[in-house]
């Protein structure tokens, strides 16, 4: 039977500063359908879901829900329209009770004249949790007493409680273990049963095919295609996702991995709250890929190898002076550079000029007994802006006004200016347009030839397979498999290890 269209997205565009996150995207989703949305990082799949859920405002375009135009400016208004969103990051607040989290923003309906009847709210919260088959979580307890997975289940209960007409699940699957996943799938089934619609955003193509009726593919903010039922094949989807044959010239050309003899960094049986007995060695002139789900501990390992955190047990040694890494200052002295995952808050100072950002960690090199004239600084900054081809019309401009790709170039200019021999990239191409992505890949290749050691931490398997000499896959804080570079490595092989 012909399901009438529930969600109609027409020519929606959205840009953050100069980066075009969404370019003229239009697609329809029918009532009772479970629509998957896939795309590489930065393809705009999270942006479109947040716009529909009222978190971001769209620049242009119209979104109709059941034929009526949708003007949801906040999540609460979206909820009123029957739209619920489960976010990727942590969506619950630790300091308040589980029940308060479930009814965050609409406590008004549990009491009158601005006061809340906590007993009633706790009862409702218990009911919400039972609705998704969970009775281990007590609603009146403080949320930070539960672990990450249980807090995500609370979010699922919160979304399902209002029986949304449109449920949006934004890459939540990877924060859940098998038990949590079963709950999520049962919720999606329940929504489908009462005729609701689900937007399911994920990385994992196998999971997608199992659950979704259809899938929309986005690439770099542009709508590519939607496939239905039968003709959803993983390989085909991947091609559409990446946009070109797994052509070689996009990633590295050489098929064989190679690395220098000299071990540049060593991690020996490290234990932290996330990592379990991790041991690895990084060689000179090698690109070591580190893959896995987003909370498998690879990001924590990256921070550890830059001295930002200290291991509870085990050692992180930089071969240069064979000492344990004390702090980032010591790491930088040993020639380690770290490109953080959250670029705007950690890797670069937004409210500062490009020149200051580039010169900041090489001040001791530029200056004589601490003093550096503006001239010296300008020369140093221009030299590296040139080398990295950062698109900026004046070195005094603030980094805040640059596009994502240019910001990343500024970070690279900073570390290469510093002359760091060991570079830790944490999702370097996240939210960056194709042109700059390609430039970064070629730069990595050059650095590898020059003998730099690169640790590439990435959530995108194509990137890992294309760029690394050696790939380590992590799962739940453990290194589960190690493969050398070679044509026989496929994504499905790695995905099996990751999940």
């Amino acid at each position, binding site marked *: 039977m012909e399901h009438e269209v529930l969600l109609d997205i027409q020519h929606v565009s959205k840009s953050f500063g100069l980066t075009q996150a969404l370019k003229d995207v239009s697609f329809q989703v029918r009532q009772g359908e479970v629509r998957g949305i896939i795309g590489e990082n930065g393809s705009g799949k999270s942006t479109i879901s947040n716009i529909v859920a009222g978190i971001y405002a769209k620049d242009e375009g119209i979104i109709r829900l059941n034929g009526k135009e949708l003007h949801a400016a906040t999540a609460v208004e979206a909820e009123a329209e029957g739209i619920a969103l489960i976010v990727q990051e942590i969506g619950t*607040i*630790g300091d308040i009770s589980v029940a*308060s989290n479930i009814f965050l923003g609409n406590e008004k309906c549990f009491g009158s004249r601005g006061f809340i*009847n906590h007993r009633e709210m706790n009862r409702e919260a218990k009911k919400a949790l039972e609705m998704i088959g969970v009775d281990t979580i007590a609603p009146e307890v403080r949320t930070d007493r539960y672990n990450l997975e249980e807090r995500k289940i609370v979010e699922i209960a919160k979304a399902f409680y209002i029986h949304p007409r449109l449920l949006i699940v934004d890459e939540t699957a990877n924060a859940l273990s098998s038990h949590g996943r079963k709950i999520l799938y049962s919720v999606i089934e329940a929504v489908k049963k009462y005729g609701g619609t689900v937007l399911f955003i994920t990385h994992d193509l196998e999971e997608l095919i199992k659950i979704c009726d259809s899938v929309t593919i986005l690439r770099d903010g542009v709508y590519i295609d939607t496939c239905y039922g039968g003709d959803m094949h993983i390989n085909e989807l991947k091609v559409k996702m990446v946009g070109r044959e797994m052509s070689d010239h996009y990633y590295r050309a050489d098929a064989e991995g190679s690395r220098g003899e000299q071990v540049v960094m060593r991690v020996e049986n490290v234990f932290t*709250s996330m990592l379990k*007995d991790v041991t690895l060695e990084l060689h000179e002139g090698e690109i070591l890929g580190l893959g896995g789900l987003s909370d498998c501990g690879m990001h924590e390992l990256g921070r550890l190898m830059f001295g930002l955190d200290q291991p*509870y047990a085990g050692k992180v040694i930089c071969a240069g002076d064979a000492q344990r890494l004390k702090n980032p200052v010591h790491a930088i002295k040993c020639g380690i550079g770290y490109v953080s995952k959250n670029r705007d808050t950690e890797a670069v100072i937004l409210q500062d000029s490009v020149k200051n950002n580039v010169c900041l960690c090489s001040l001791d090199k530029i200056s004589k007994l601490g003093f550096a004239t503006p001239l010296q600084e300008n020369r140093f900054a221009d030299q590296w802006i040139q080398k990295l081809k950062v698109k900026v019309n004046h070195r005094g401009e603030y980094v805040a006004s640059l596009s994502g790709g240019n910001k990343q170039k500024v970070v690279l200019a900073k570390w290469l200016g510093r002359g760091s021999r060991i570079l830790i990239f944490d999702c370097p191409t996240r939210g960056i347009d194709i042109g700059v992505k390609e430039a970064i890949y070629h730069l990595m290749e050059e650095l590898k030839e020059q003998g730099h050691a690169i640790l590439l931490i990435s959530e995108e398997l194509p990137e890992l397979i294309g760029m690394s000499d050696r790939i380590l896959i992590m799962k739940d804080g453990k290194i589960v498999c190690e493969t050398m570079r070679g044509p026989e490595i496929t994504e499905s092989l790695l995905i099996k290890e990751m999940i």
Partner: protein
Amino acid sequence: MNKKISNAIVVVMVPIALYLFFLLLRPKSFGKINTVYIIITQSFITCMIAWGMQYLAKMGEFDLALGAEMILDSIIAALLSTRLGIPGIVAGCLLSAFVCGILKGVLYRVMKIPIMILTIALIYLLGSFGGLITNSAALTIAYEHTFLGRAPGNMIVFLLTGILMYFLANKSVYGSNVNAVAGAPGISRNNGISVERTKIRSLILSSMFAGIAAIVQLSHGSGVTPSVGLDSIQNIMQPMMSVFIGFVMAQYVNVVFSIFVGSILMSIISNGITALNWSSAIYNIVVGIILLLIMAYMNVAKIYSKRHEEKVRAIANIKEMNL
């Protein structure tokens, strides 16, 4: 249920211990029931101001202009009391407090100045404005208008404020919004809670609570003198410390009660120092050092609890790997 009671006992033990300490030092004067009565009644005003400050402090903001505001409230109340009597005092204080609250809210919203810097400028504006109205003269109120400052009066006001505070902090939508914003502003904003409106409400609320406290303060002291410069900050040092002590004890018992215990602690200290006839210098030093100790304890405790949590998980990982 018994966990709640045992926590409450632990919290109450602290002021009792401090009281005994001063009892040992000065048995003659601290031994009487009258002293306990005085300690408790004198903590009312400090506690009410602290209750008002609690919301902003939880969100990491500090309102230093409350001292100057209370003086301005008392001045306006004293002027009204000549014609309207006690209702004049109550109306004067609350009205002036409300206007000061709105002024702070508007300045914060329109001019977007950080709250702490804004309050420093307001100490000057509100304090000097008070001085301008009375031409730096002290104002007093007639004895028959001071009912609210005396025994039955201040207790009634205190209990009513306590009940209002209990409902506001624990039972109201605003109260849960404050806890949410204090916990994670980003997530609260995504869920439709306006962080700015919550902060403006907290600014107005802290002024209203200070207004109520000003009523009791004026009626108790029967006089008010305009302040010059930053002296009015001294009047709110005790409430500020009660808030921090209250936060430290808030894990064991409801924050409303823990702040009251905090203000009793401060009242014991000030009474103790008067009884021991220590000079004002020692009072300043003792107050300053206690404030630093509490703040240091809160920060260090937070860091160590996080580190301890990670250690526990790491040890669990090690055990798991050894199996």
